[in-house]
């Protein structure tokens, strides 16, 4: 990347910013003495894991801190003004006109009851600019500028009628409306699919160039940083760890923490793996499921194919990755395999048992052979049961005595790296990574042959993610498990899968070994996916 940074004026100067958390938090300050300059015409990335305070910094710039968080010191200077010292009217004037912001969740950041155009027009209205007629015209122009299709039509649409990427474009259009000098983007692509993410990143880059804006870009993803940052600021626990030009920080990090973080990012090149040659443990054939929604006496129903003629087999000791974007049907396939939802067609054979034929008690008994690790470490553990109960409920339901089950639970906890004292505790007392370990212990307690991991590491920070992946790999080898690994993250898939199936709209479009898929993608969709993975520049380096 050509770093022709002429040192122009500083757009925003943050000095010694300290943001205090309410009492009882895990630390007194969310942000503790952070200072940086955001220069006009550059994209500065704030990088860090969750809890690093990066998002707080962004919100502080907009004066949108949560009520519980208070400014304990420091200054944010924008031109002549210290933003932190201004009153409510001053903030209103600053927001939107001088600094604009794009949020993480495009699905919830727009008012569901207002038309897109009206929400854009509000930007002008808030600052008393233009006539209502002109505002509408500008809204259309903005929609066109951010590349929304059919701008005239889309300004009359409601948010729910737009896709996630379109909504984020609308958000960006809104932020650009008053041509602010500074754009704060808080994880703007995190909730998007990888191909959409690539487009939005490109849009932000283009707009920033065209308008010569200063962009403060918040992200946890080093891939994204690689693709977009001019300069990087690494945060940890509310403090700046390292700061510098993107190339320098990513290429030759000075601090151990930065090095560790970068090392934890999975690489795009799959390691060499021996081809599994065990017997087939699970065989899926012609699995189909169609969802029918809506439809009344006078309206045609809408149908969505969650799975279309999906077939694959899994050998003992093998990990098969199911990758795809949201809505591709990968999670539905996982649930179909688990019989959490009923297939319309097709069979799932577990050894010599046809799972799809079983019902009632027979199904309940067979369930112990195939277990699942869920995505959300917070939603997958019953908050009202102790860890011990959570792990032993399964074995007890299958006739193991509570005592034996407990003994097994202690062993499993040790195996996943937790203390036996955890048995008496409740889930809320654990961190996300620890909870995911408990979830794994629960699945293993039934001594299954097959483990289905549904986005099992997606909600975790990159360092924790690396640990859990290693653990899964270990356990698989130790117990000779087969694993069906569902993920949207191709980097993760590359690291853990023997073979990978790419899904789109309920279909498997390509299925081959990981090494071959990355080296030699055949299907155009697979190629698009691979091309869109952020940070490939760094992998290549």
């Amino acid at each position, binding site marked *: 990347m050509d770093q022709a940074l002429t040192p122009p004026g500083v757009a925003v100067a943050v000095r010694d910013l300290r943001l205090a958390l309410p009492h009882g938090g895990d630390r007194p300050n969310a942000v503790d003495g952070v200072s940086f300059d955001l220069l006009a015409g550059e994209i500065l990335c704030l990088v860090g894991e969750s809890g690093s305070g990066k998002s707080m910094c962004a919100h502080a710039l*907009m004066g*949108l801190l949560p009520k519980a968080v208070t400014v304990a010191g420091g200054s944010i200077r924008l031109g002549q003004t210290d933003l932190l010292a201004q009153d*409510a009217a001053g*903030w*209103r*004037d*600053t*927001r*939107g*006109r001088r600094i*604009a*912001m794009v*949020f993480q*969740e495009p699905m*919830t*950041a*727009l*008012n*569901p*009851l*207002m038309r897109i155009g009206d*929400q854009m027009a*509000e*930007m002008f*209205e*808030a*600052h008393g600019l233009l006539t209502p007629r002109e505002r509408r015209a500008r809204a259309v122009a903005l929609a066109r500028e951010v590349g929304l299709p059919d701008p005239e039509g889309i300004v009359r649409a*409601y948010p*729910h*009628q737009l896709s996630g990427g379109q909504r984020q474009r609308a*958000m960006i259009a*809104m932020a650009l409306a008053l041509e602010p000098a500074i754009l704060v983007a808080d994880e703007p692509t995190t909730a998007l699919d990888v191909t959409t993410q690539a487009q939005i990143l490109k849009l932000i880059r283009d707009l920033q160039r065209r308008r010569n804006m200063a962009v403060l870009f918040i992200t946890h993803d080093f891939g994204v940083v690689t693709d977009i940052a001019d300069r990087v600021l690494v945060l940890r626990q509310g403090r700046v760890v390292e700061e510098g030009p993107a190339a320098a920080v990513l290429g030759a990090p000075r601090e151990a923490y930065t090095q560790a973080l970068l090392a934890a990012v999975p690489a795009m090149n799959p390691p060499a793996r021996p081809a599994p040659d065990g017997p087939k443990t699970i065989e899926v054939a012609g699995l189909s499921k169609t969802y029918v*929604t*809506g439809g*009344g*006496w*006078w*309206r045609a129903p809408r149908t969505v194919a969650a799975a279309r003629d999906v077939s694959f087999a899994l050998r003992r000791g093998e990990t098969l990755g199911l990758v795809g974007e949201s809505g591709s049907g990968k999670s539905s396939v996982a649930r179909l395999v688990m019989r959490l939802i009923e297939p319309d067609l097709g069979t799932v054979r577990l050894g010599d048992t046809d799972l799809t034929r079983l019902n009632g008690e027979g199904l309940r008994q067979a369930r112990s052979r195939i277990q699942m690790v869920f995505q959300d470490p917070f939603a997958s553990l019953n908050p009202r049961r102790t860890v011990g109960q959570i792990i032993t409920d399964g074995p007890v339901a299958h006739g193991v005595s509570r005592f034996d089950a407990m003994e097994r639970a202690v062993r499993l906890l040790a195996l996943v790296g937790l203390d036996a004292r955890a048995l008496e505790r409740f889930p809320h007392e654990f961190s996300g990574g620890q909870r995911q370990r408990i979830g794994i212990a629960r699945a293993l307690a039934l001594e299954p042959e097959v483990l289905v991991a549904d986005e099992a590491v997606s909600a975790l920070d990159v360092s924790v993610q690396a640990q859990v992946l290693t653990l899964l790999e270990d356990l698989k080898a130790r117990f000779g498990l087969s694993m069906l690994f569902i993920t949207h993250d191709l980097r993760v898939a590359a690291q853990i899968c023997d073979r990978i199936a790419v899904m789109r709209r309920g279909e498997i479009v390509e299925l081959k070994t990981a090494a071959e898929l990355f080296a030699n993608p055949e299907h155009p969709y697979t190629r698009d996916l691979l091309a869109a993975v952020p940070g490939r520049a760094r992998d290549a380096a």
Partner: protein
Amino acid sequence: MAGFIAQRLAKGVLVLAAIVVLNFFLIRLAPGDPAVVMAGEAGATDEIFVAQLRTKFALDQSLPGQLAAYLGSIATLDLGYSVRQQMPVATLIGERLPATLLLTGCAFLISIALGVLLGALAARRAGSLADTAITGLALLFYATPLFWVSLMAIILFSVRLEWLPSFGFETVGAGYTGLARAADIAQHLVLPALTLGLFFMAVYVRMTRASMLEVSRLDFVKTARAKGLTEGVIQRRHILRNALLPVVTLAGLQAGTLVGGAVLTETVFAWPGIGRLMYDALLQRDYNLLLGVFVVSSAMVLIFNLVTDVVYRAVDPRIEVAR
């Protein structure tokens, strides 16, 4: 939308039919029958008289036969005949329905308008003295027995202060017409509509407040703030509008309670509505009339539910997709 309404109406008819059958048997479980009541009132009876009355009320026919006959007439939108009152049930209800609609309608508007207004105020100043005062006041109105408030209001405003009439729908025999009559009715309406409305207001205050607090945490409110909108616009346009959705749902569910609650108010204020008609019909075992009132008031609830659903759909553009 038309399809949706037609579908709902069809479903409503089924619900009504079920209500008719259920209540038909229910009220016949009560001791006594209309003949017995009328005989008792006459001050003297003999077997001939009671037998005549039984024939008159068609009580000498079999129960399924009576039900079939009733359902048959209902199907042709005929609510039957009140032998006791010597009038078609539809006429009797038709005379009373406007009064009830006026009362419950006004009470509903008062409750929801005040409730939303106060709830929004309380939410905006959550935790403040104003919030405590509003929620406390609402709770007080909710906790005080409706009839007790009504009696107290009559004593204060009608007897002591002589500001408002204490009973009835209008000044009988005054011969008002046009605007003068409307003003007269409005005067009579104030106390019953207020006491009933304030009782139900509490529910909306609570709901609006909770809903607004919930919505104000949502992301799009932050977006609105990031635009530099004033707090007033954010509250009205972004928070309140979204917060009203559950309030609309609740309003639909409250309809049945509101119509029921009118029985007490109508009794205390001598308001000639169908709530009282129902109570009198019950005491007199005037089966056709009682069933008729149930059918009509249930139909009112169904229609009201439908209206709230239509309103909901009109307010929330997402419904069309999500069904």
